[in-house]
């Protein structure tokens, strides 16, 4: 399928407006660029939800914020929970840039969303973000009543670089449970256009290296800032696709985009998980680009995609679905089944 016409128009408008592409120097430039873009494609604070509140968490050497979203309506006191990690190449992105997505996911999935404002490189390079994520996971799992969640139905989610963090946290939780029965348990992982192999050697990485929203030079610069020189890129905490075994990982919902440089690694990850007996659902969204799910103002299909994801999660978490007939029609399907 060709590039979606809305996505194509968006890319052409951005290019005509003079968006900087490729390598950047100052990280502030990268952050402002993503923040400006988010204001354009999905202004924060505009989607109504049942409630939003912030929670501070003490972590190693500092504090981070957790933003808790409750769905519209009259939800039960304890809901399934979803810990969310925003994308932005580990150097950019914020609670604000992904606020619209979190609000829609909250309403559509019926989960209580807990977005993690993990610390970013270069001031906080690898593994700070991961450590913040692990601290947040443990804190939420051990204090379910504070967050209004059912700890038996706690999932992790992330997009782009946040997807890496979510996938790696699943491995960490699984491994921790081998020695510690009190380790946090993760019920599911939702990965949206995740980065799963930072080597960037796939066909999609090569063929979509420029002109599809996220250029390879930008990604290279992100990695320079995020990964200390003594860390191998094949470290499974950076490239979980490079792991040798995947057994015992939680049910995965993996959504890729046809014109995303990370699409191959997302689909390879789904196949690897499935090969080790992990239940995998998701879709390869035809005609779409990276970050499309955050761009409803520019790419209307974004809303439909989040609805599809919402129904998948509701189905898995045994939550009511508004339209049973529609629910059956879009029953989760194996990615590239």
């Amino acid at each position: 399928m060709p590039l979606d016409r809305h996505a194509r128009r968006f890319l052409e408008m951005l290019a005509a407006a003079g968006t900087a592409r490729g390598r950047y120097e100052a990280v502030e430039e990268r952050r402002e660029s993503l923040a400006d873009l988010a204001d354009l494609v999905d202004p924060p604070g505009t989607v109504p939800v049942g409630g939003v509140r912030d929670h501070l968490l003490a972590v190693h050497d500092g504090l981070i914020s957790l933003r808790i979203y409750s769905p519209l309506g009259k939800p039960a006191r304890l809901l399934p929970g979803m810990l969310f990690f925003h994308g932005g190449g580990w150097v950019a992105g914020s609670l604000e840039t992904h606020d619209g997505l979190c609000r829609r996911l909250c309403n559509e999935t019926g989960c209580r969303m807990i977005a993690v404002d993990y610390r970013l490189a270069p001031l906080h390079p690898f593994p700070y973000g991961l450590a913040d994520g692990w601290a947040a996971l443990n804190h939420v799992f051990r204090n379910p009543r504070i967050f209004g969640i059912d700890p038996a139905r706690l999932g992790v989610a992330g997009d782009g670089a946040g997807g890496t963090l979510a996938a790696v946290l699943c491995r960490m939780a699984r491994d921790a449970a081998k020695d510690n029965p009190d380790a946090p348990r993760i019920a599911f992982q939702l990965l949206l256009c995740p980065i799963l192999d930072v080597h960037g050697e796939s066909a999609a990485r090569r063929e979509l290296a420029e002109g599809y929203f996220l250029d390879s030079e930008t990604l290279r610069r992100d990695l320079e800032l995020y990964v200390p020189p003594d860390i191998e890129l094949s470290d499974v905490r950076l490239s979980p696709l490079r792991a040798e075994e995947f057994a015992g990982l939680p049910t995965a919902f993996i959504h890729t985009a046809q014109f995303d440089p990370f699409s191959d690694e997302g689909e390879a990850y789904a196949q690897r998980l499935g090969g080790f007996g992990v239940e995998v659902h998701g879709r390869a969204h035809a005609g779409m680009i990276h970050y499309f799910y955050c761009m409803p103002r520019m790419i209307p299909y974004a809303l439909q995609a989040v609805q599809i994801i919402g129904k998948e999660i509701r189905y898995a978490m045994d939550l009511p679905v508004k339209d049973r007939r529609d629910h059956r029609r879009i029953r989760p399907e194996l990615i590239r089944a």
Partner: protein
Amino acid sequence: MFNAKDRIIAIACHLLAKRGVRTTPQLDANLRQAGLTPPDIVNLLLTVEAEFDIAIAQSATTPDNLNTIAAIESLVSMTLKAA
């Protein structure tokens, strides 16, 4: 009744104000240099389309057609005439 130029300037001023810029851009001033970011310019274009109830042709979305108020006004006039 404002003319097309004034309506486009009003939209640009609104976007510039969000950036803390309070001056009105000259017709031929480069909008990037005036203080708009690339996403602001895309936003300007989308708002102009809604304001005039038009859809600017994809082929007309070029850097030269988006860099000044005068160029955007010209684009709007051409699109309105073609409708």
